[in-house]
């Protein structure tokens, strides 16, 4: 029961402070996983990869997966509900009181200073993951090649992940 409650609290926090979408959340998820000692970094990166390749928002995919890894089906259910709950409450409030409460100028001002922080968190996520993901020169080549492909050709991320998986299998197996 303790671990389920811990999962709920962690993922509620992730949902509550998850500004800027799935990628910005990676940093939050990682902090929670590390603080609780729930999972190795490598496993976490693998889950993020799977979360990107399967349909749906990265936040749900990773919450369900991590919840399952830590506490089976009840864990998956708990983490998923917890990560959605802040959105559900806050957006309903927004939809009801939107006209009277929100001041677009204030929202703009907050987002103006929040966006650089979101970018910083994404850079941080990339940096900490790379400590485990970049193990040799060849993985550095895959990183550069993937970045070039997505930046210059706008190829869909799924194709890039599939391609690098095939390259990894061929290179590291033979």
């Amino acid at each position: 029961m303790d671990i389920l409650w811990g999962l709920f609290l962690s993922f509620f926090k992730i949902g509550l402070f998850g500004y800027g979408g799935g990628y910005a959340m990676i940093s939050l998820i990682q902090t929670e996983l590390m603080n609780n000692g729930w999972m190795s970094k490598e496993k976490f990166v693998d889950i993020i990869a799977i979360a990107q390749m399967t349909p749906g928002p990265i936040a749900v995919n990773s919450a369900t997966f991590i919840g399952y890894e830590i506490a089976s089906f009840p864990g998956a259910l708990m983490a998923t509900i917890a990560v959605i709950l802040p959105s559900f409450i806050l957006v309903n409030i927004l939809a009801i009181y939107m006209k009277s409460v929100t001041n677009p100028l204030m929202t703009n001002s907050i987002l103006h200073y929040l966006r650089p922080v979101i970018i910083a968190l994404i850079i941080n996520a990339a940096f900490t993951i790379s400590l485990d993901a970049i193990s040799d020169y060849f993985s550095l080549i895959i990183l550069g090649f993937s970045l070039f492909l997505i930046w210059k050709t706008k190829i869909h991320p799924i194709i890039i992940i599939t391609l690098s998986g095939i390259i990894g299998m061929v290179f590291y197996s033979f």
Partner: protein
Amino acid sequence: MNSKEKLKLLKLFGCFFKIGLFTFGGGFAMIPLMEKELVNKHHWVKKRDFINSIALTQSVPGAIAFNLAVYFGHDVMGIVGSLVSVIAVALPSVLIILGIAMFFSTFSEIEIVQNIFKGIRPAVVALIIYAAINIATHLKWDVAMIVILIAATLVSILFSINPILLIMVSFAIGTIVFLYNKYYKKKKSDCNSCKN
């Protein structure tokens, strides 16, 4: 609830289930399909409201996909509508991920699978870096934003400060600047009026 409302709720569920099932790569990728379903097909939301709502829901934390599902669900059928929509948009992911997660531990022991993931991990780093670049290139940068970016990046990497703290600090800065501008401009306009 009459049968007409039940039917509408069922349609809402089907609509968001489809959106959850067919979008890969997170919230922003959902927007075109959502527009097609909600605006063009079902006529539940007006095009102008749709565009405004996307900006509005980003002022609230949480995954973009949930925020939009809750918001439009509420628009169409109140709180019940928002509950049905958010469950529907999450359900395909949950089912697919559970299917994968059940076999993941067994699969990840196999050497070939481990090698596949060795190749995938650097690509994930590339995708995350690109997400940062993508947001950065769509912003109008000023000095304050650049200072915040550099400071937040250094602080979070060097001192591994909890991201929540960084978000709260920038939230506070944005609020203070807004209040300062409001107060300052008000004071200024008062002075103008007393001169006249």
